[in-house]
């Protein structure tokens, strides 16, 4: 019986990836793209610090706000799956981004909201080690942010 996974031919997929790796196409530097999704802000996702990532993503910096709720666990049960929820009472929120400064790349997720979409998203992230989690909310063309520390005892990056 075959497992109905997302990749019907897993062996071929792995073989292709291995080949890409051998050709040096799938290395560290993020050149692994066979095709980048349209509109995916690759440069911002390749930055090691939140500042650099935010500069590339928004072209501006943020100010602290208490109108953002960042719900994260104090101690992650496993760094591989850290539930994160961001919501805000700020008006007209257009984007919500989540950054983890201690991860190899700081920017983790960025959501673009349509008018009428609630300023509230939940997702699950990988964290390599104990780090702050930063939530950035864009409202009325300005950036606001808040952060909270999550302790990680079992790293989510193969540790």
């Amino acid at each position, binding site marked *: 019986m075959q497992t109905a996974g997302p990749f019907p031919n897993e062996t071929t997929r792995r073989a292709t990836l291995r080949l890409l790796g051998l050709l040096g196409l799938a290395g560290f530097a993020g050149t692994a793209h066979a095709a980048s999704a349209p509109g995916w802000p690759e440069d911002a996702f390749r930055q090691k610090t939140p500042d650099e990532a935010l500069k590339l993503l928004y072209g501006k910096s943020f100010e602290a706000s208490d109108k953002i709720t960042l719900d994260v666990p104090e101690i992650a049960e496993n760094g591989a799956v850290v539930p994160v929820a961001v919501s805000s009472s700020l008006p007209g929120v257009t984007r919500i981004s989540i950054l983890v400064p201690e991860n190899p790349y700081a920017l983790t997720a960025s959501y*673009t909201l349509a008018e009428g979409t609630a300023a509230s998203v*939940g997702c699950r992230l990988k964290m390599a080690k104990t780090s702050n989690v930063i939530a950035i909310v864009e409202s009325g063309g300005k950036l606001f942010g808040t952060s909270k520390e999550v302790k990680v005892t079992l790293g989510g990056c193969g540790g």
Partner: protein
Amino acid sequence: MASTIRVRAQAGSTSTEVQALIQHPMDSGFVKDSDGKLIPPHHIETVTFVHGGKTVLTANWGPAVSKDPYIKFSFAGGAKGDELVVTWIDNLGKTDTLTAKLT
């Protein structure tokens, strides 16, 4: 083949709550396999949710979103029976799409 996307979208009186789970390895490119070789990055870059021709949410993801990613959000409006089209595309150009009905 079973879809890689599972969606629960519930229309309430004023808004619709959406939860989605996508089957994807989300390999970060920083993890080594059992032979000590780096597993190349393979992760979803973009997910879109379209309701009534309008993109209600676009998610841009890096390699640090968890394996088999999950997302939860809500948008104004939506009625039972409406269609919600969910599409993802990853860094290798693979893609999948699912049309779900609001419940």
